[in-house]
């Protein structure tokens, strides 16, 4: 495959050692009529080639906004990035020119959105939209691009790809459309895929098909994968490590096994306790009291303090930093030891 103007041609000293993507102290805010909504408040995470990072959080916790910042697809204004670094292969994307970022987008970092129907163009055939990737980025002829499109549809297991290449998005089921979105993201063999709730709109049986496909392709191409979700179940099956978000911050960050067996943050712990389990018939469900905060008025100290069963005075005044817990994990809680200990 020939990639024109490959940006990695420009060597950077530490490109080999640095993680594939590293987000440092990212802040994003929106200027709205109600005030400034602080959607992302100092997010840090990193992902390596071949690794899956799950970003977990409830709706409004800032998962999509931080991913959009990485992709460079935030509308600015109303969005603003007052602070932070987004290092891709060691280079800060926030300091690049628009031209440079466009070259990375799609080619090196691709994104899969939750709602496949609205991210595909309804009046163009699926084959045309897939082929467009090759025509625009690689200058292939229409005929070659179409052949590539069929190959890709085959890769993501669309039955009878050759016959269906001229069909329109609405003629495919939800699961097939999501597989076509995956095909589109894969087209240029990116180094990193960001999948924003890729299976949330799908039935469990189809969700399983799609997740399996995504995991398989990721391993095959040795890509980094950032999987954004609100579903603790989905990530347990595929993630290597998990970053839990609350009110625009990562409150816990850990290898997947640790987080489920021994959460080190009261919010993670509450979430795990509040979901009913298929293999257990419990009594009353544990419920986290109250509601997620309004982002124009995030509580002082720890943002989770009004809902936290362990909150003390210090939680209402001091913002907890991400304390290291063992070697590869962290918890932004003043009482992480006590949380772990119980």
């Amino acid at each position, binding site marked *: 495959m020939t990639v024109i103007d490959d940006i990695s041609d420009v060597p950077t000293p530490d490109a080999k050692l640095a993680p594939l993507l590293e987000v440092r102290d990212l802040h994003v805010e929106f200027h709205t009529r*109600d005030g400034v909504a602080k959607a992302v408040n100092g997010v840090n995470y990193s992902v390596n080639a071949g690794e899956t990072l799950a970003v977990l959080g*409830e*709706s409004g916790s800032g998962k999509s906004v931080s991913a959009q910042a990485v992709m460079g697809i935030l509308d600015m204004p109303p969005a603003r990035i007052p602070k932070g670094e987004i290092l891709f292969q060691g280079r800060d994307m926030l300091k690049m020119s628009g031209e440079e970022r466009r070259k990375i987008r799609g080619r090196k970092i691709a994104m899969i959105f939750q709602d496949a129907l609205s991210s595909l163009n309804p009046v163009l055939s699926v084959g045309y939209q897939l082929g467009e990737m090759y025509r625009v980025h690689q200058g292939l002829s229409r005929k070659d691009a179409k052949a590539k499109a069929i190959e890709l549809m085959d890769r993501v297991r669309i*039955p009878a790809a050759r016959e269906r290449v001229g069909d329109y998005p609405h003629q495919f*089921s*939800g*699961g*097939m459309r999501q597989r076509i979105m995956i095909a589109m993201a894969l087209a240029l063999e990116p180094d990193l895929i960001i999948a924003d709730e890729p299976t949330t709109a799908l*039935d*469990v*049986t*189809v*969700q*399983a*098909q799609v997740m*399996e496909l995504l995991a398989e392709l990721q391993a095959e191409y040795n890509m980094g994968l950032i999987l954004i979700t*609100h*579903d*603790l*179940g*989905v990530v*347990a*099956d595929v993630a290597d490590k998990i970053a839990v978000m609350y009110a625009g911050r990562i409150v816990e960050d850990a290898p*997947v*096994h640790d987080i*489920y*067996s021994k959460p080190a943050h009261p919010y993670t712990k*509450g*979430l*795990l*306790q*509040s*979901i*009913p*389990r*298929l*293999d*257990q*018939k*419990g*009594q*009353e*469900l*544990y*419920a*986290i*009291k*109250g*509601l*997620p905060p*309004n982002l124009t008025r995030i509580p002082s100290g720890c943002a989770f303090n009004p*809902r936290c069963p362990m909150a003390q005075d210090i939680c209402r005044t001091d913002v907890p930093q991400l304390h290291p817990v063992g070697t590869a994990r962290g918890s932004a809680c003043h009482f992480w030891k006590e949380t772990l200990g119980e």
Partner: protein
Amino acid sequence: MSEPTLSKDPESSAATAAEAGAPVVEAAEAAAAQLADREPILQVRNLVKHFPLTQGIVVKRQIGAVKAVDGVSFDLYAGETLGIVGESGCGKSTVAKLLMSLEQATAGEVFYKGQDITKLSGRALKAVRRNIQMVFQDPYTSLNPRMTVGDIIGEPFDIHPEVAPKGDRRKRVEELLDVVGLNPEYINRYPHQFSGGQRQRIGIARGLALNPEIIICDEPVSALDVSVQAQVINLMEKLQDEFNLSYIFIAHDLSIVRHISDRVGVMYLGKIAEIGSDAEIYEHPTHPYTQALLSAVPVPDPEAREHRERIILSGDVPSPANPPSGCRFRTRCWKAEARCAEEEPLLAIPTRFAEVDTPAKHESACHFAEEKDVVGAA
């Protein structure tokens, strides 16, 4: 605008429930014994709903039908929760609408205390409707944004003034707000001033207004955040005990359905594939579709992933306008044989289990019904 806060939280009492430590097994057995000699409150028999497919603009010709519900039967007992699960488009919401008489059934009967409500109209229907209420999926669109919370909850009284005479209404609405854990002072607020979980509480309060016996809940918590879902589920369970309500709980989340249901029916393409008690369905499923569905549910436990067998179904659900012959599941079933294409399996206790005392002894519409532990709980 200030964020409304809950006046109380009846749901944050997990600790007390744990302390009480009710003997689960005994309770379940007692409940089963009770069921056996109770009359069902609702009996659904061979319920069918076909939506005509038409072609042509001036002269409409019927070219077929979407067989949304195609012969569904089940019973509902007083005070129990019957869960209905199945993939998108299998006919769950259509069943709900038929039970509510919001759609006219193409065929079949729904007996409410012995009376077929599909044949009722006018005053007789109105009288029955009072006792069967519904809570909808989407707390964002199911409430009229221009009505106050008080008017929304009190609206059913316009149709049934006998339940709450004019002078009593405000008091009754305030009581209902209190029952669902909202501050009665919010009576004059509008829906947009509430969060999703609070709006779902408003929907529940409205469903309770007429003191119904049955509440049909179509995906009542699917649109809510994980941390808020548990609050609403706990509220629904509390209200069920308090008012002896029967629930039909429709959802695609199998874990939530297991948590709340006494019995569960699994739907596939307009039919019930398997039905039984929660333990029978989740721990001893005999229908290949139920087994596949259960095996696909992600369990929030990475340790479990090594122990679980995953059945990944190929392909998608066929169109309900043109379902496969014989067994409808055969196009995706890994056990399908020639017989499955020719002969439709009926929903019944499989003969091989009929004479034995086993949890596999429950209704399953498969020629080759056999047990398979997919959840790993047994």
